[in-house]
């Protein structure tokens, strides 16, 4: 006998989530599984590999300092970007939260607008600021402060600046969301107990906003360390990051097994940081941050 459908039937729920579930299985889980298998395939020549199992790719990765150098640099740039985002992002988030300005939504909207503008365009637009004929160089030359244009593009600083531009709104929104969830009477209580505003900030506001800051740091770090376009446009060949290495290995050298190995390495390393974060903070904060 068929069981009757109940109001919140689990079977119905599975039917509703089926499309997304299938999409995630075929486009996320399965690819990563196949990619893991591919790391043990033998590279024959550009675009050709055999399924003869080998650990050569992993061996090459662990012994060739070329790869570990890339990894270290990527993690360093990611960490620097995340920290800078945290420092520079906290102030605006706090300002928007604490301001008595009537049109707060406008301040928030102004932060969301850059989100909509094409990422590629936002990245290359920095060339108009930093380039030899960019705003800064032309202004400094006209003022006679320098005689030759400063080389500000195509180095690590430019890459970090570009990523900062891309990631700051993420950070600000994350911190803002966690500030918004603070019960303001707590701060009033702290003040009435004799705290100065600085003490109230240090003892109440800052600790309560830390989850948002942590979520922002993780998000910025992961997105920066996985970036491809920014180092491609604003960095030189020397400042390529792990994402560029993967792209060149797959699309340039057509060495698929090595490309898969590098992808899995990046996946595991970033996954490690995300796991540590989840262990201490839980997933919910980052969910709040992403939903804006």
């Amino acid at each position, binding site marked *: 006998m068929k069981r009757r459908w109940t109001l919140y039937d689990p079977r119905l729920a599975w039917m509703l989530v089926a499309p997304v579930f299938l999409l995630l299985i075929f486009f*996320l889980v399965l690819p990563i599984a*196949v990619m893991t298998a*591919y790391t043990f395939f033998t590279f024959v020549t550009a675009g050709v590999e055999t399924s003869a199992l080998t650990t050569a790719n992993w061996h090459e990765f662990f012994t060739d300092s070329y790869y570990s150098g890339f990894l270290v640099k990527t993690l360093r740039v990611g960490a620097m970007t995340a920290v800078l985002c945290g420092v520079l992002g906290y102030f605006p988030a706090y300002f*928007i939260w604490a301001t008595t300005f009537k049109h707060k939504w406008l301040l928030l909207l102004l932060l969301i607008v850059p989100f909509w*503008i094409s990422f590629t*365009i936002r990245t290359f637009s920095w060339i108009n600021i930093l380039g030899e004929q960019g705003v800064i160089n032309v202004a400094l030359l006209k003022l006679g402060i320098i005689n030759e244009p400063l080389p500000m593009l195509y180095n690590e600083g430019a890459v970090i600046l570009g990523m900062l531009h891309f990631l700051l709104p993420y950070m600000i929104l994350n911190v803002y969301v966690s500030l918004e969830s603070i019960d303001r009477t707590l701060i009033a209580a702290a003040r009435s107990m004799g705290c100065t505003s600085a003490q109230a900030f240090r003892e109440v506001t800052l600790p309560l906003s830390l989850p948002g800051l942590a979520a922002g740091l993780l998000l910025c770090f992961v997105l920066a360390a*996985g970036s491809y376009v920014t180092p491609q446009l604003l960095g030189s060949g020397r400042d390529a990051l792990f994402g560029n290495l993967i792209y060149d290995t*797959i699309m340039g050298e057509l060495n698929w097994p090595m490309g898969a190995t590098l992808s899995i390495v990046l996946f595991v390393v970033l996954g490690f940081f995300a796991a540590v974060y989840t262990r201490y903070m839980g997933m919910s904060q980052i*969910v709040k941050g992403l939903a804006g």
Partner: protein
Amino acid sequence: MKARRKQEGRWAWRLTGFVTLCVYIFMFAPIVATVILSFNASMFGGFPMTGFSLQWYAKLMANEQVLTAFRTSLWIALVTSAVTTAIGVVTAFALVRFEFPGKQALSTLVILPALVPETILGVGLLVLIKAIDQPRTMLLLVLGHILLAVPYVVLITQARMVGIRRVYEEAALSLGASRVSSFREITLPLLIPAVVGGALLAFTISFDNTSASLFWRPAGVETMPTQILSMLKISISPEINALGTVMILVTVGIPLLGGLILQSLTRLKRRGQPTEEAR
């Protein structure tokens, strides 16, 4: 003593305001520079301006490659936005309203595409279709974009759905409405802001996607961002600045317009109905 402390607080607040202002300038300076430079008469992309000219826009309008890429991206983004919104809203509904085994795992899995770097997602799908010997197709590209946009649509809808009490739906059901019509008549109208927001976000995510599209696009197909990337490989010209300006207008204008329409719609609706308090 007290006065000095107050002074300190004021300075801290001023510093916060100053940094905030700097961040806003930082966010908008390159965008403004790009828009200004797109009207530069000079052949070379850069300051100082040599005069005002619209020639780069004219040149852009005649650039067949750019127009094709624009149309391609527009179609992909429209399809992605429609499909992602539909399946995302249904998923969020199931995740909020239902209890089922595997729910926790699924809600974590749904967020993953937003956290896994695009390069990895890009390579993964390529390796998979290489392993099963399939070509890169338009369908693959669109499905890939749906994967990238789905987390955001689900999260936005979930956030809104949590605020809608289930008794409304249950009341409709108990009055004899079918499940589908209770969803259509009760839940969906209350969800509209999240649906529109999700659709717009999915559109932008798809229209804007660069890294993953570089891996997934079929041979010979350029989307707008990959087209820009290949143009940038040659040089930064005023034409690219003009293109950037057009894209800024499209991607900022469409959501703003959508938001305004939505606002006036709700206002119109409200005029015809008693307010929440009056009820």
